[in-house]
């Protein structure tokens, strides 16, 4: 138990360090209180909220898909949310806003459900076909986003952000919206964390333990879509945090989803704050989209997992 407390302490220390890096690093070395308070602080807070949503979303998806390589980026959830977001912008719905969020959620849910059902055959879903089908849905949504952007040049830049992934410099409304979506998504997922544990033994076994696997999956997909919508509306489609957060945290805190949901959220928050800080500094004064940095680190990580864990348990 003491050991677990120490791990919590390390995790929280890391998150705080990332938070400090987010607030104090930037293209200018000046520590102007005005910049810190009016620009950096809200941006870092938004990165934390979006990152937490990504971590929680990854945890939910790896649980419900029973696949440790699943994440909102690979499964097409983020791209679906991005597509919904771009359509919302094209319809004149502002981000943040209820209509905007609704369309982004709908896009996320539609893309995920579609990828899932395409990969499923005979009541089974193989990890490889799931990843393939997710990547296809993801690239299709990405292409549609580009198509929309080119067709309507007016909001081209803000729309491109949804593909590349970069933390917005949003005001209080954006912060409130992201926080609300994060909490709503967690409210969907937290009560079914024990169900997700049982689901890892197979849908048939989960049924015998008293669950209704279809209802559980629907609820998990809805929660994951809301979380992806929260992340994407605040920071675009940043990949691999949703994959890495539950994966790394499982190695330290064990596979139980009750704890994993919490620590994955914390890790995701820290990871995106750190990435955003790096995004502002590595090529300063130019800014690299955080999503580009995430892919630079995340894609090799994914390949490493694929190679290492082929015959192992997670």
């Amino acid at each position, binding site marked *: 138990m003491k050991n677990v407390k120490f791990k919590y302490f390390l995790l929280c220390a890391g998150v705080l360090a990332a938070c400090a890096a987010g607030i104090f690093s930037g293209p200018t070395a000046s520590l102007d209180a005005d910049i810190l308070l009016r620009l950096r602080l809200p941006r870092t807070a938004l990165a934390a909220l979006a990152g937490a949503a990504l971590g929680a979303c990854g945890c939910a998806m790896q649980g419900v898909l029973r696949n440790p390589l699943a994440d909102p980026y690979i499964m097409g959830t983020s791209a679906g949310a991005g597509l919904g977001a771009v359509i919302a912008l094209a319809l004149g719905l502002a981000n943040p806003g209820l209509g905007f969020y609704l369309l982004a959620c709908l896009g996320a849910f539609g893309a995920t459900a579609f990828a899932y059902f395409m990969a499923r055959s005979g009541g089974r879903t193989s990890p490889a076909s799931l990843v393939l089908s997710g990547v296809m849905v993801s690239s299709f949504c990405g292409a549609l986003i580009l198509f929309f952007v080119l067709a309507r040049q007016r909001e081209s830049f803000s729309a491109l952000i949804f593909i590349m992934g970069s933390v917005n410099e949003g005001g209080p409304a954006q912060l409130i919206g992201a926080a609300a979506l994060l909490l709503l998504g967690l409210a969907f997922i937290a009560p079914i964390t024990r169900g997700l544990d049982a689901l890892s033994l197979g849908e048939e*076994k989960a049924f*015998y333990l008293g669950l209704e696997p279809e209802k559980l999956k629907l609820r998990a997909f809805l929660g994951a879509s809301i979380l992806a919508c929260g992340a994407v509306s605040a920071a675009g489609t940043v990949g691999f945090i949703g994959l890495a957060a539950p994966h790394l945290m*499982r190695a330290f805190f064990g596979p139980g989803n009750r704890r994993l949901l919490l620590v994955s959220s914390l890790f995701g928050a820290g990871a995106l704050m750190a990435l955003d800080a790096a995004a502002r500094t590595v090529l300063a004064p130019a800014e690299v989209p955080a999503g580009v940095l995430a892919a630079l680190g995340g894609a090799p990580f994914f390949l490493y997992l694929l190679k290492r864990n082929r015959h192992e348990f997670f």
Partner: protein
Amino acid sequence: MSSSDILLNAENLVFAYNGHNVVDGVSLSLRAGEFTAVAGPNGSGKSTLLRLLAGLLKPQSGAVSILGRPSENLAGAARAGTMGVLPSEPEIIYRFSVLETVLMGKMLRASWWRDPSAEDMAAAEQALKRVGMLAFAARPLTALSSGERQRVFIAQALCQRPRLLLLDEPTSHLDLRHSLETMRLLKELSREGLAVAAVLHDLNSIAAHCDAALLMRSGRPYACGPADSVLSSENIAEVFGVKAQPGVDGGFSFLLPH
């Protein structure tokens, strides 16, 4: 045995898949204190029958009643609290420990924010003790042999406090010793008042441990009743197409296929 001991009663079950009757007119009663075997050649519908009894599949005609109530009225927590079911091969993806796995049988209906209480832990430990796996409590499930995993899943089912225990081929992946130990454990559990039913292949093991047997052929019940009379050499010749020589040695009766 009086009829009040009947915990599960299946009447004339029919289940068709792709226009083909996989289970065709099976009736079966499972009684408290009895260990029932379901035997038959591969593809004779044994596993499908078990899933019908467990409520995972709905029969196209016929009905299953559990504790005198139609089984479709028994859902979720109530179903899990009445029967524990072990599918043939558990799927294991994440590294849950033995104790965490057994607790799933107990905690699934608890509020998500509640940690397992001392009572929950005691129940899980008792179930592990019952199957002889308490020493393995902290180990990850992934590090166990199939025989040990089997016992953990039996402990998990016991944690649900069921009246019935259904198992699909519990001994098929086990060596001789572990297979024998599993059969002994199931027989003991039935003696403690559970109704136990299992899909089994080893006819001698059925004859040695089970009270009743259902012999199936192409989805239809071929013979049903006391295990020793169902597993006669005539029935075996007819259902499996194999001649078996009955013999007795040191008080044990056995069948030698040849």
